[in-house]
């Protein structure tokens, strides 16, 4: 059975939507604001574009690669685009204001709205993939010039920016797996986690910045929790890293709200028994949710428990693995 998670065409569309989101909401509004305020000039961008880029080069698509491999490269390149935007925002953050950024993105005023591109449609999956590769490449050019311009205008030194760009992105899915595994074995930690997840996680030495409120949703015999963000893609990024691509895909968002049980079955081949309540949590504001799945039956050593946890089980669209696999 091909579940939704293996649908390469939908994955390409999700990457496109994500790139659009980051361009229209997180990059261009800030950049336009900096230009309006005279903090960065268009000429800076043009000059900066001619210099050697500080942002890492994108990985070249390989013509011989399979669709799945190509989508993986595309996803990787999208990741570089996103982390570059985040770094730029961090560097320039004292020079723009978020309230105005929302205005600048045209969220309140259609006249100021930044137009979205249409998804390249009407062709086959391969052509769509190639078109989205090109779009990400174009968007990345602007990001590269923007980062260089921030150095030109002395927002930050070249070396410091290089350091930021080259630093590995720390939050990873393994954080979540380890939090869950600890909750399975340590009752006191679990209690703390359910009471105030942010504090409990912080005490493990995991950074929780940019997660205003964090809530762990415990699955039990009677309750199964699922998370979604229908308005964008809210997720405890800071703690768990990036969600799987389909989490950001409109197909998932819409279907899980309209018909949770059927969606879990059709998209993820996951059945929830009739006597178990399904609770879908839509993180529409400042609460970041993740699911605390039930511990699989069987004997496992404490050291290998975390390997049972899957990204799907943290979102509630699957169970943890029933046996340890090498990762």
């Amino acid at each position, binding site marked *: 059975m091909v579940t939704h998670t293996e649908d390469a065409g939908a994955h390409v569309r999700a990457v496109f939507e994500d790139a659009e989101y980051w361009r229209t909401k*997180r990059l261009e509004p800030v950049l336009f604001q900096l230009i309006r305020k005279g903090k960065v000039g268009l000429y800076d961008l043009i000059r900066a574009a001619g210099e050697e880029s500080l942002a890492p080069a994108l990985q070249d698509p390989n013509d011989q690669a399979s669709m799945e491999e190509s989508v993986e490269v595309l996803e990787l390149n999208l990741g570089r685009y996103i982390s570059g935007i985040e770094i730029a*925002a*961090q560097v320039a*953050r004292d020079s723009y204001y*978020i*309230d105005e950024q*929302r205005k600048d993105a045209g*969220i*309140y005023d259609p006249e100021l709205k930044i137009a979205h591109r249409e998804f390249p449609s009407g062709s086959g999956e391969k052509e769509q993939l190639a078109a989205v590769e090109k779009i990400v490449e174009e968007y990345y050019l602007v990001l590269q010039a923007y980062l260089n311009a921030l150095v030109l205008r002395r927002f930050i030194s070249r070396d410091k920016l290089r350091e930021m760009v080259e630093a590995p992105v720390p939050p990873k899915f393994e954080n979540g797996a380890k939090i869950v595994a600890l909750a399975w074995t340590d009752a006191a930690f679990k209690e703390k986690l*359910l*009471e*105030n*997840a*942010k504090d409990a996680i912080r005490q493990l030495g995991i950074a929780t*910045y*940019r*997660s*205003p*409120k*964090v*809530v*762990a*949703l*415990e699955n*039990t015999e009677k*309750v199964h*929790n699922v998370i979604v963000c*229908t*308005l964008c893609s809210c997720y405890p990024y800071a703690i768990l890293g990036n969600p799987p691509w389909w989490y950001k895909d409109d197909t998932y968002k819409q279907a899980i*709200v*309209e*018909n*949770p*049980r*059927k969606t879990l079955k059709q998209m993820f081949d996951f059945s929830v028994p*009739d*006597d*178990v*309540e*399904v*609770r*879908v*949590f*839509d*993180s*529409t*504001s*400042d*609460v970041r949710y993740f699911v605390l799945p039930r511990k699989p039956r069987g004997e496992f050593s404490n050291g290998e428990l975390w390997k049972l946890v899957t990204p799907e089980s943290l979102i509630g669209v699957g169970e943890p693995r029933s046996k340890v696999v090498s990762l």
Partner: protein
Amino acid sequence: MNRFRENDRVRVKIENPGSPNKRTPSYVRGRVGIITACYGEVVDREFDHDHRVSWGPLYTAAFESFEGNPRSRIFVDIHESWLELLEIEAREAKNSFRAFKGIGPFTRKDDELDSHEQMPHRLDVLLDMGSSV
């Protein structure tokens, strides 16, 4: 100060002009839900996207699901200015119902987080209440 408490029945406004916050999904606008968590005002200056300024107290409200199965519900985080209290007397009725069932009042403070799992099934509470009052 939070206007609503857990277990309050609220209706989500269809429109909320004047509020800078548009983050109330269309599928709950005009619908009736039950407050299941009160977070108070959320302001986080580290957060570089939303909520460097307060949008007013935040709540989680539970709604019946669209699949028509009483054993599935959808929980949505909504700010106070989007909500109207549906039944003022429901508060008192629920308190007496709680005493009757021995559930006891909730002692949780608004700014403390709790597991949703530990809370009773809100819709069930109301349905039961209807039959026992």
